[in-house]
């Protein structure tokens, strides 16, 4: 009973004390589509992503009711850092929805201004002034916002003298951003100003929270920073497996200002012995702390590299194929050395193209339609739908001058054009693609996007193409994921398979290249292109390391070339310059400097390669 009454009381007092206007609330979701272009147009950094902010305790004076209800202690403010633009998840400050919406646009315009120097008040005042100067259209809505805001703020007359002075200064800066105002000294933080940017944004190494998520105990900038440091300390700790085997896994994260990456460094003993039990070897790397996205305080995910139970694993298609491997020490191919298992990704359900990729996909489709084989007019045919006037005239002129052929070819025909090209895209799905590449997310996400967009583009061009992914777990299990073969159409089922991809295991590239070259060689096309998307060197848990892996891969590439396939590698491995020229030749690869541009690079490259 007490519970029920307590609940009523809580709801009642909360409703009575709450200062927002839920009926006029505007959610961030309603402007999500417009926000990025708007922010860019205002001059904001185009690389930023949009995130919703979490409440920050402001420490300012609250009403008695709010204190009783235990609300009103947090405020959602906007800010931007080098990673993202953070906007409140919903705005219900004003009783008028149009004003709340206008506030979103105002905050974006303000956040797009380069930050002027000075304290919180001066920064915002100067930025406001610049915005209003550059955008007369915003001035009108700004005036309305200020007017509505002042009506909501505590009257300075009802505040203690020191706080009143601050409030006066804020009001002055809001109403007349063009005039200088000095911020008086103050002990208590002033009431937050929702028209301005965050006074001390919690810039962590990782983006803001996810909607509806409030990080624990961050009631001030200091604590926030401390917490971030704590998180970082936590994240940088070394994880040593309990049972000391030969190997050891170190996880190290460098959280720089701009991006952070995960380096997974695996010390492996060089076992030339193939018959070792997989599970035992995998035991050496059974813990891997994976990036947390600010949702939790560095949650730890455990990876189990034992062989997954059959019901959790991708679906194998048939018993597998035996493929040779090149042993560079003996300088010969070892027949039937690798078992390649064609598979379908598990848990794949048909899915449309993710919405965020639609604009780019549309653009690529448009561009690639130009590649589609066009029917061109051919002159000099003995029959056809059109008469070639030029030839008729020439024929008549010649006949008049007394020299005519028997059967002039006077017609024009439109034989169907042909591009006659087949392309197989082979994507690296090894565990290293689990690592993060700054804002764009994980490498695997970029690879998935690339596969999706690439397929869209190629569908438009009309070229025959296939999509495959690979990873490996020693020589008995080269996993070869069939995403779309040449005979299938690129439909929602294929998209679903791409979306269901999960990274894991290692990179036995040679076998995957051999199989891809075989598939390509069966395609009835004049030109065959094998595009390999990778993020690092070939490697595996056994002796497929260093020189051995490189040489086998190189051999596979040479074989592919011999079979009339043109291999080309697109990598995001910065150190690729050390080994790729040896594999693909100096003109057979490209290193993508910024992983997030991989989809565009891939498609532009395809256009160039196939011109």
């Amino acid at each position, binding site marked *: 009973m007490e519970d029920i009454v307590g609940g009523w009381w809580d709801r009642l007092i909360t409703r009575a004390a709450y200062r927002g206007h839920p009926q006029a609330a505007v959610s961030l979701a309603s402007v999500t*589509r*417009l*926000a*990025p*272009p*708007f922010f*860019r*147009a*205002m*001059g904001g950094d*185009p690389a930023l992503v949009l995130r919703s902010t979490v409440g920050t305790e402001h420490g300012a004076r609250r009403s008695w009711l709010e204190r009783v209800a235990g609300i009103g202690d947090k405020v959602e403010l906007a800010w931007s850092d080098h990673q993202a633009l953070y906007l409140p998840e919903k705005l219900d400050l004003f009783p008028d929805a149009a004003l709340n919406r206008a506030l979103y*646009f105002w905050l974006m*315009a303000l956040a797009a201004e380069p930050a002027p120097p000075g304290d919180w008040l001066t920064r915002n005042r100067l930025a406001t002034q610049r915005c209003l100067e*550059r*955008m*007369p*259209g*915003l001035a*009108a*809505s700004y005036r309305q916002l200020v007017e509505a805001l002042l009506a909501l703020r505590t009257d300075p007359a009802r505040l203690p003298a020191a706080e009143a002075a601050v409030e006066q200064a804020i009001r002055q800066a809001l109403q007349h951003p063009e005039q200088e105002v000095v911020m008086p000294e103050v002990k208590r933080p002033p009431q937050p100003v929702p028209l301005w940017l965050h006074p001390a944004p919690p810039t962590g190494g990782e983006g803001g929270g996810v909607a509806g998520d409030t990080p624990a105990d961050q009631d001030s900038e200091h604590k926030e920073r401390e917490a971030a440091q704590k998180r970082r300390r936590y994240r940088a700790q070394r994880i040593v497996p309990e049972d000391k085997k030969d190997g050891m896994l170190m996880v190290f994260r460098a959280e720089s200002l701009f991006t952070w990456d995960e380096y997974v460094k695996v010390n492996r003993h060089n076992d030339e012995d193939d018959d070792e039990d997989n599970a035992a070897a995998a035991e050496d790397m059974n813990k891997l702390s994976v990036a947390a996205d600010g949702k939790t305080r560095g949650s730890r995910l455990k990876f189990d590299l034992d062989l997954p139970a059959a019901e959790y694993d991708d679906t194998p298609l048939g018993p597998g194929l035996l493929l040779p491997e090149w042993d560079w020490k003996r300088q010969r191919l070892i027949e039937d050395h690798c078992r390649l298992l064609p598979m379908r990704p598990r848990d794949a359900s048909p899915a449309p193209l993710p919405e965020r990729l639609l*604009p780019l996909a*549309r*653009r690529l489709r*448009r*561009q*690639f339609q*130009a*590649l589609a084989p*066009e029917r*061109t*007019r051919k002159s000099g045919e003995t029959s056809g739908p059109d008469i070639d*006037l*030029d030839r008729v*005239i*020439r024929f*008549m*002129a010649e006949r*008049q001058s007394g020299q005519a052929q028997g059967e002039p070819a006077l017609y024009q025909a439109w034989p169907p054009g042909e591009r006659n090209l087949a392309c197989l895209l082979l994507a690296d799905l090894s565990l290293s693609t689990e690592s993060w590449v700054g804002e764009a997310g994980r490498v695997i996400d970029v690879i998935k996007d690339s596969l999706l967009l690439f397929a869209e583009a190629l569908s438009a061009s009309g070229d025959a193409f296939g999509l495959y992914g690979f990873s490996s777990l020693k020589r008995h299990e080269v996993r070869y994921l069939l995403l779309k073969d040449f005979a299938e159409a690129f439909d929602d089922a294929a998209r679903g398979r791409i979306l269901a991809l999960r990274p894991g295991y290692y990179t036995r590239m040679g076998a995957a290249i051999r199989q891809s070259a075989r598939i390509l060689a069966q395609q009835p096309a004049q030109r065959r292109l094998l595009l390999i998307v990778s993020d690092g060197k070939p490697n595996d848990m056994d002796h497929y390391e260093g020189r051995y892996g490189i040489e086998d891969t190189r051999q596979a590439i040479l074989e592919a070339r011999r079979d009339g396939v043109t291999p080309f590698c697109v990598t995001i491995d910065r150190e690729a310059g050390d080994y790729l020229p040896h594999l693909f030749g100096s003109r057979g690869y490209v290193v993508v400097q910024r992983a997030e541009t991989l989809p565009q690079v891939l498609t*532009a490259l395809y*256009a*160039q390669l196939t*011109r």
Partner: protein
Amino acid sequence: MNAPTVSAQLDVPFYQPVGSECELFEAAWRQQLPVLIKGPTGCGKTRFVAHMAARLGLPLITVSCHDDLTAADLVGRHLIGDGATYWSDGPLTRAVREGGICYLDEVVEARKDTTVVLHPLTDDRRILPIERTGEVLEASPNFMLVVSYNPGYQHVLKTLKPSTRQRFVAMSFDFPQPEVENAVVIRESGIDAARAAQLVTLAGQLRRLTGYDLDESVSTRLLVYAAKLMAAGMAPRIACRTALAEPLTDDADTLAALLAVIDTQFP
């Protein structure tokens, strides 16, 4: 080498120089060099060529290239008349014979085999062999070849063959600086300086979206259109929507974003 002659002309189309492009063009013409002009759509390439042709007192023959343009369309063809056939010069041949500027607009749109007929005209021979009549035309000293194209990224698949490209002296055009663009907008439309400045600021904002949300950015031409609509009494917001937002995108979300940007200048 015959030096080309200049005869002054009175009604020269308005062109606001941004740098020394006029002098460059004139020098190229004096030295009988072919010119390639690169730049985004609507940044003033065509206007510039028209302006220079008028300034140099040369006839201007413009060919808008398209993917069905054949060599015969440029060089000429036989026609039938009065029971006999006669040869009719194409635009290129006419310019070669009579002198003047032959301007091939958006030359990358033409079929690749078409541009090959330009090759003998672009080196020191300056000749045009006409297969069908057996003629080999020597270009008039007043003949000048100018081609233009838009190297924007939407032409990732359409570029000029390197062997063709490196036969020209090339100039790169871009949208003019705000103050120049201001002057152009005022001059072309007659609107007041304040609104022209807002329009140009708006263009700057919208051009930041090129390559992200928009394939092509707001051209000076579209700005002038918007200004002309305003001069005709349209409300600025509607003028901008009609001339700047709608022509650039069909995507509803992008359009809404563009309108929000327009609101920051013309509420």
